[in-house]
């Protein structure tokens, strides 16, 4: 298993609620709904439950020109979408871990609920995902004779910060200076373009803070950090490098966006 990079801040009690890792790949020619069962068989021992879900539309991080009105623009035509094959969830027995599969996507989710499991750390999640992804790649090669061609990858960290009042933004967010007596709602998004060493844009880091209510009716800030873009190459090795880089960017960004006071509350380990 990878070791945590030493320069990354660590927190004993991070407000982390969910982590998503995923890749998008070129459709495998000849893949049909009949093959989905065979994919599930690869993971069934650890993910015995299955659930159908609607398809996720392809998403691409491109640069230049005018950004579409909506980030993650999805086109309107549906004819022939992925050969009519939908998305499925493969769910662990406890319900904290999930694999998501559709003919052009493969993702893994860890989440704290439903039973408040301790965070297994990125290293644990990515090692398991790496193994699962390579299993999928081998399956495609064996069954269809084609390599898995990954065209996009993403890392998402979703944090849930419980507050007494939405006016506590200055307590948690470093750049928030505006502090009226009562904030009823908050919804902030920033999008940062990420460049490689050749100064070519290849990813985006999307930071979103939103006020919300928990299922128990408590006020929370939902802070999502998404790193998404095109890995350098098309294979699993390149995807894993991208995910590691994305995680690093997210953790450093989380530290920079939140206050020293909040860090102490979350048990920052220097």
């Amino acid at each position, binding site marked *: 298993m990878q070791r945590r990079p030493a320069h990354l801040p660590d927190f004993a009690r991070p407000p982390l609620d969910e982590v998503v890792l*995923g890749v998008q790949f070129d*459709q495998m*020619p000849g893949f049909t709904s009949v093959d989905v069962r065979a994919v599930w068989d690869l993971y069934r021992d650890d993910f015995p439950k299955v659930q159908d879900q609607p398809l996720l539309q392809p998403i691409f991080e491109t640069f230049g*020109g005018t950004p579409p009105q909506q*980030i993650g623009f999805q*086109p309107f035509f549906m004819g022939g*979408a992925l050969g009519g094959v939908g998305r499925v969830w493969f769910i662990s027995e406890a319900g904290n871990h999930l694999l998501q599969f559709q003919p052009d996507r493969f993702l893994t989710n860890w989440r704290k609920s439903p039973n408040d499991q301790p965070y297994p750390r990125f290293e644990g999640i990515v090692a398991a995902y790496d193994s699962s992804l390579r299993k999928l790649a081998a399956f495609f090669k064996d069954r269809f004779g084609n390599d898995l061609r990954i065209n996009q990858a993403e890392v998402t960290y979703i944090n849930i910060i419980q507050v007494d009042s939405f006016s506590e933004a200055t307590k948690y967010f470093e750049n928030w200076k*505006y502090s009226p007596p009562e904030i009823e709602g908050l919804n902030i998004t920033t999008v940062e373009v990420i460049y490689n060493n050749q100064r070519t844009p290849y990813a985006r880091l999307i930071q979103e803070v939103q006020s919300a209510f*928990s299922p128990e009716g408590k006020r929370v800030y939902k802070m999502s950090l998404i790193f998404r873009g095109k890995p350098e190459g098309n294979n699993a090795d390149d995807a894993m490098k991208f995910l590691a880089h994305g995680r690093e960017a997210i953790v450093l960004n989380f530290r920079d966006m939140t206050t020293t006071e909040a860090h102490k509350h979350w048990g920052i380990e220097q």
Partner: protein
Amino acid sequence: MNASGRGSAVYHQERPSFGAPSMIPSSRGLVSRLSTSQARMRVNAPTSPWLSELNQRFDEIVSLPKGWDGYSGVAVTFTCATFAANLLERLYVDSVPVPQLVPGSDGSVQIEWHVNGFDVELDVLAPYEVNAIRRNVTTDEVEELELQTDFTALTGWIAGLRMAESPLVRMRG
């Protein structure tokens, strides 16, 4: 940072977990979220006139029957078509005519304009694999680019297709 001041999202209704958050609120202030656990699928209306006009054409090329070319040609892949649409949305310029779409036998698609003294052809071989050429029909000069993520170079090409900027007009001037 830019507070919208709108009502808070209802977390227990949204259930954002267990979804790839493919829809992110726009920096222009619109909140647009895909709620995966509620199994809603939203297909957004196109935002540029090009895509409005190309709606039917995209539907046609992703639905072509096997052998449409008289050989063993396949339909344009959904992934390729989506990437092409995404690219067009980014490149849209007012007063530039809508392009034409030509399918390849292998699931690829070419976006092309033949207007205002230029031929501009964007051959979308796969997501992040675009071969672009621009030909000046007067001088026969050809420029070629191979593009992956950054399409900034194409913005000048597309702007040059505007009706008011015909090279023929410039020559006469």
